[in-house]
């Protein structure tokens, strides 16, 4: 645990990729394989299920620290992270543990799951007393399933590849599924990751690392100069679903999500459809909500994913389909080095005579013509276009080394909204007000004076009269601003605070933001009757007076568009 804690401290302290890589390599050079197996699992994003409920962790820590729950809560508000709060409120340890990470996980943490609450509490108290604050922090993170560190999976793969003298892509492929929630990585699993090329046989259902697209940040007028002719690109609709690979080998079928989770059992209708694929095929594509021969809203898919068991009713209410857009393996042969257009032809051939569909290509003479076609995105329930270069190989992760996939997404819907509540963020943003609640006017104010009267009433803490002009909350957002902008907004919030409700502050409204979102729907759960999807701040509208912020009618009008 000590070694893993000091690795974590190094990774956490540094922002430079090269020093993170060096720290990882040093760790791999020193750590026993069993520990390295688990370290790799956690660093690459593996999360075992939570073993002790959060409420129990809080109560136990407060009890051990000899403080009341309200005081623990104050500490948590200052820190912004439960594991870190616990690490610091506890008194200094009486002794120190020399156990390695693997022993900690296998002999202590995993058996803790399902144990009696009294046993869990006794164990935790004993363990806390043999770890220093950074180690306790990690322990609680691992127990709570909230471990995160500033390294990408790609970087872990690079470090392992450098450590073992392998190609990072090979390591990436071997690592697929390594971080599955059910995985129990051990020395053998770790050895298989770093075995010499050609050895370390691939597991039967092993998928390929997903090739990820980049957001297209090229101005429209520069498309010709930067992208060349549209004829060099395969243009497809960008689906709003779950990215997945279907692996069909030796008569069996596996479905992997982009999160490297094996989700085969969740999509029986896709498994059924995949039966007709020849052995040795791997498809890349999107699982989408599909009803009556057409795309259905993403919310339905979400609804289905949220269910623990798949009842007949759910299967009937929220059917899905797989739309294939790439072929990574055919007849057992890895096709990833073949150009995009060739893989595409092979894909169409392999899908012939199967019930699986492929994503149609969109033809366009010019970028202008495509831009016009892209206008249909919302009514088609897609997010815009994917542009894939004809010659692109299928890369590994978010790289442009092998060719490029661009996401040419439609502009988000947007409204100008007023900041009315703020809450401090977590982690790096703890004690900075970064999470905001936004409101629009219930109708357009007649003029600045009428709006001002509403603001004055808010400041006097007078509740709004029914039917009178008021600000109606409709969305929360916490992303989209730079650190400098957050600091500035934080300053304004502190100056304009009216009331504090625990961690939340109400403010005298003074800031207007352009708020972007991907979708909008009616929702009885929101005061405004409207819910937006992926809201985020596009910019601060310092130029916009408060009374010119948007209204409920603006949102209603967008309901029609989206």
């Amino acid at each position, binding site marked *: 645990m000590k070694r893993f804690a000091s690795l974590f401290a190094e990774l956490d302290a540094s922002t430079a990729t090269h020093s993170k890589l060096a720290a990882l390599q040093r760790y791999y050079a020193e750590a026993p394989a069993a520990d390295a197996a688990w370290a790799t699992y956690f660093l690459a994003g593996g999360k075992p299920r939570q073993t002790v409920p959060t409420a129990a962790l809080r109560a136990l820590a407060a009890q051990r620290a000899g403080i009341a729950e309200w005081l623990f809560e104050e*500490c948590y508000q200052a820190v912004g*992270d439960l594991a870190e709060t616990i690490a610091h409120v506890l008194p200094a340890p009486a002794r120190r543990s020399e156990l390695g990470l693997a022993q900690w996980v296998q002999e202590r943490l995993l058996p803790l799951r399902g144990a009696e609450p009294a046993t869990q509490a006794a164990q935790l108290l004993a363990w806390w007393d043999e770890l220093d604050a950074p180690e306790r922090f990690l322990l609680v993170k691992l127990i709570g399933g909230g471990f995160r560190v500033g390294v990408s999976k790609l970087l872990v793969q690079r470090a392992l590849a450098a450590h073992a003298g392998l190609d990072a892509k090979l390591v990436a492929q071997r690592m697929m599924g390594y971080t599955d929630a059910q995985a129990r990585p051990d020395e053998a699993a770790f050895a298989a990751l770093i075995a010499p090329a050609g050895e370390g046989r691939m597991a039967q259902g092993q998928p390929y690392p997903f090739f990820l697209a980049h957001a297209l940040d090229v101005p429209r007028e520069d498309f010709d100069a930067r992208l060349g002719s549209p004829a060099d690109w395969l243009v497809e609709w960008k689906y709003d679903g779950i990215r997945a690979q279907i692996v069909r080998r030796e008569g069996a079928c596996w479905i992997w999500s982009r999160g490297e989770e094996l989700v085969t059992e969740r999509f029986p209708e896709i498994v059924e459809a995949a039966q007709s694929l020849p052995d040795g095929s791997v498809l890349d594509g999107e699982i989408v909500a599909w009803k009556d021969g057409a795309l259905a809203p993403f919310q339905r898919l979400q609804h289905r994913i949220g269910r623990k068991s798949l009842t007949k009713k759910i299967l009937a209410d929220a059917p899905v389909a797989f739309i294939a857009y790439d072929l990574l393996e055919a007849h057992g042969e890895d096709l990833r080095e073949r150009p995009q257009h060739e893989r595409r032809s092979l894909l169409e051939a392999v899908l012939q005579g199967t019930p699986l569909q492929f994503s149609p290509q969109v033809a366009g003479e010019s970028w202008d013509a495509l831009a016009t076609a892209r206008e249909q995105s919302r009514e088609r329930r897609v997010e815009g276009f994917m542009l894939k270069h004809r010659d692109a190989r299928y890369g590994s992760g978010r790289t442009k080394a092998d060719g490029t996939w661009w996401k040419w997404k439609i502009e988000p819907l947007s409204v100008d909204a007023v900041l009315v509540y703020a809450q401090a963020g977590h*982690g790096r943003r703890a004690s900075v007000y970064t999470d905001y609640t936004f409101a629009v006017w219930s109708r357009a104010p007649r003029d600045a004076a009428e709006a001002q009267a509403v603001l004055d009433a808010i400041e006097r803490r007078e509740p709004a009269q029914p039917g009178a002009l008021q600000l109606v909350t409709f969305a929360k957002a916490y992303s989209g601003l730079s650190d400098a902008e957050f600091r500035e907004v934080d300053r304004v919030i502190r100056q304009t605070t009216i009331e504090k409700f625990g961690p939340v502050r109400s403010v005298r409204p003074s800031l207007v933001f352009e708020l972007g979102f991907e979708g909008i729907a009616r929702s009885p759960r929101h005061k405004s009757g409207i819910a937006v999807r992926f809201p985020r701040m596009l910019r601060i509208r310092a130029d916009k007076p408060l009374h010119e912020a948007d209204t409920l009618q603006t949102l209603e009008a967008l309901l029609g568009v989206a």
Partner: protein
Amino acid sequence: MDLVVQRPEGLYCPPGDFWIDPWRPVDRAVITHAHADHARRGHGHYLAAAPAEGVLRERLGEITLQPLAYGEAVEHRGVRISLHPAGHVLGSAQVRIEHGGQVWVASGDYFVSGAGDDNRTCAPFEPVRCDCFITESTFGLPIYRWRPQREVFADIDAWWRANAAAGRASVLMGYSFGKAQRILAGVDASIGPILVHGAVEPLNEAYRAAGVALPATRLATEVKDRAVLARALVVAPPAVAGSAWLKRFGEMSDAFASGWMQLRGARRRQGVDRGFVLSDHADWPGLQRAIAATGASRVIVTHGYEAVMVRWLAEQGLQAGSFSTEYGDEEPA
């Protein structure tokens, strides 16, 4: 009668007609220590602990200052005033006020650590028995527990040593008055040369003049030799972060020494390579220990987590309240 009350100018002693660390100009001011939020210009008369004299004059220029040795008392309008070490910085004092059979103590800022450390660059905190204790609360949350100083300095030394071995300067930022001298007195000076920023050296002189042993220091601006810079520890105020002044060191590692570095979020916001948890203020156990040692039945909390501390103290059976002050706004910690 309350011996200290809150007024717009600052904390005021009605029977003695004087102020403690006032933030607006007044006739008579008792100054607990020379940090800018406690010692301001423009008062008629200043009373402060004798070891603070050099720094106060250096910072405030021409003032009418009456230095008072720790433990000695003066009488003013029937109020007996004495100053007692607070362990915060050179010359920092708690103000003991005795009148009409009552004793009140105003702590100013002080350092007492749960780990049992003393601040070795000044006279250590001395508990003073009183009826009412006016306490700071900068780190008044149970998450603030300082590790033993030797462990922190071992970390700083190890960081410096590794940088020196790799041929890069170690720039350690900390407030120039108090923190810088704590750092200088605590590090292993045999690791390499020690350079300081121009804002730090006059304070070093004041400490040395007061008999505090500090290792030899040179002004960073006077050293051009790359080989020296590459092995050096550079002690500088936080204001140099991101400034052109840092360019002279070429490749370097930067760090920040402050109690606030206890939290990961604060470390990451600071954007430096390392954060060392080193404070001149009491940690949570230190505050509890200091308050208990006064034997006071009434406690008034000034700056920091006032509301939390007041509620906690009330739950411990003390009569607790708070003063709203203008201390701690630009507080080094």
